[in-house]
């Protein structure tokens, strides 16, 4: 019986490899998301992260397995799942405001014009774009476009928000600013979010859990790493938390050394890892914290040995 908000069971994707054979990109993907969770998924290119997200969005079909949300199987796209695409996917002939209005109207067709407009403007204000309502996407910078795209997704108040590497095409400074905005909006709305990223720091800043994928073909979600840093988090101060460094070291080690060979538990669910277990929480940076994190790296190695 399903208990979690979202349950992914035995998902796999097989493509013809062009030589008469088959190529299994990922297989037996199993995980669950709880309501209000922010989960990031990290893995090397080609492991099929985007395909998993597209299956959740209903834009792509898996070769095997199923996805159940709120007790209902996902078949095709739906408004209860909002998607933010990497390339923004704004409609270029519509103004900023009308791009949001388009989505809000689709979500609540019964709303009056004024209500739709007021609601859309509120979400644009949330991402700091209330001054650019009547501009076309082509007149906006990449960062501003992605903000519009984020506002559009949040404005429809989906139960599950899917972000496909939303900051991948942005420069580091812009990326930081928008991450802050995403943190802020998420703290306000506490949406359930599933996000793809390549950026370890971004994943730690935003997520409650981080899924680590092994390399494709035959990629799996090998581990589920708990990010033990309390909310609200801020990009400027999160570095001071010792748990941050433990988690970061662990993720980087996985991606550099172990992503080729890592496997999930025998039952197919990701191994649950807590790299920062036991680290004192919310400690500002101090001489103590540094020594502490040193001693922790030993227990971390031990934890890894157990997992392997």
């Amino acid at each position: 019986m399903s208990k979690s908000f979202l349950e992914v069971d035995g998902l796999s994707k097989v493509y013809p490899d062009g030589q008469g054979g088959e190529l299994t990109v990922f297989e037996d993907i199993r995980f669950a998301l709880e309501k209000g969770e922010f989960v990031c998924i990290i893995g090397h290119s080609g492991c099929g992260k985007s395909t998993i997200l597209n299956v959740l969005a209903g834009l792509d079909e898996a070769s095997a397995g199923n996805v159940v949300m709120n007790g209902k199987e996902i078949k095709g796209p739906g408004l209860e799942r909002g998607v933010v695409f990497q390339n923004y996917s704004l409609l270029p002939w519509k103004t900023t405001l009308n791009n949001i209005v388009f989505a809000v109207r689709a979500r609540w067709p019964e709303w009056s014009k004024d209500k739709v407009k007021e609601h859309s403007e509120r979400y644009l204000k949330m991402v700091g774009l209330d001054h650019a309502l009547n501009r076309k996407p082509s007149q906006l910078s990449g960062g501003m476009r992605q903000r519009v795209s984020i506002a559009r997704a949040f404005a429809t108040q989906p139960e599950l928000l899917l972000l496909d590497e939303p900051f991948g095409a942005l420069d580091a400074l812009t990326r930081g600013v928008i991450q802050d905005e995403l943190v802020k909006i998420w703290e306000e709305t506490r949406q359930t979010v599933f996000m793809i990223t390549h950026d370890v720091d971004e994943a730690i800043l935003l997520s409650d859990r981080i899924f680590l994928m092994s390399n494709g073909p035959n990629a799996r979600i090998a581990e589920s790493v708990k990010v033990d840093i309390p909310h609200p988090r801020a990009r400027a101060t999160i570095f001071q938390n010792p748990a941050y460094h433990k988690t970061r070291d662990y993720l980087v080690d996985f991606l550099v050394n172990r992503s080729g060979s890592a496997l999930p538990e025998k039952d197919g669910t990701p191994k649950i890892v807590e790299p920062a277990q036991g680290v004192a929480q919310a400690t500002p940076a101090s001489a103590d914290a540094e020594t502490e994190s040193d001693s922790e790296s030993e227990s971390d190695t031990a934890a890894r040995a157990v997992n392997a």
Partner: protein
Amino acid sequence: MASLNVRAALLSVSFLILALGLWEMATQPPEAQTGLTEYEMLMGGVEQESRVPPPSAVIKLAWAELSDPFYDAGANDKGIGIQLAYSVYRVLTGYLAAMAIALPVGFLIGMSPLMYKALNPYIQVLRPISPLAWMPLALFIIQDSDASAIFVIFICSIWPMLLNTAFGVANVRQDWVNVARTHELGPLRTAITVILPAAAPTILTGMRISIGIAWLVIVAAEMLVGGTGIGYYVWNEWNNLDLASVIFSILMIGVVGMLLDLALGKAQKLVEYNE
């Protein structure tokens, strides 16, 4: 230094004056010779050789015609405005009929690879047929010269619109279609709110090509079917050996063609977008 536009305009006007001047000089009647032969006298002087009229004569005629463009003095003597109006009416009727078919069918072909593959061979065979080749068949089947001319316009303007619509629709970015899908838009609403605006610039390009071709073809079609229209007018004045009228109507064909293209160009601007 004057702006580029002003300099270009000055240059344009000087080219015009130069060309008209050369034309005027080249078409002067020869000096009257002192002694006319008896035959020349009988034939009314030296102007026995027909000549292209000088621009001054054409301008004089144009002035007269344009100051009363809509007079109607019988079947063979109608103002230039009436003749042009007939032609524009035929072009627009045939063109709108072609639009009514080409846009939906183009949409269908663009959205369905099956329909594209099924219909493409016919399109490829029908498209290169000169529209005038349809005329005899049209006259036989429709048994009405006016409607046949409209049919010829219809058949020549349908192809660019059809192909451009299909191409535009088929190449709408998948991202935008995905936006429609994630917002649970039905097929009809997706077509109207996403695919149509996305493909509109390409469709308008096809429509602009079509109106150009239609205007080219109407002149020839009206020369064939006769009765009314600018094509008939040109041919009629040629039969009257009134070359000043022929030149004048050629210019008018150019001006109206330009106006039609300008109108479509404006429409194109309206639907354009930058990615």
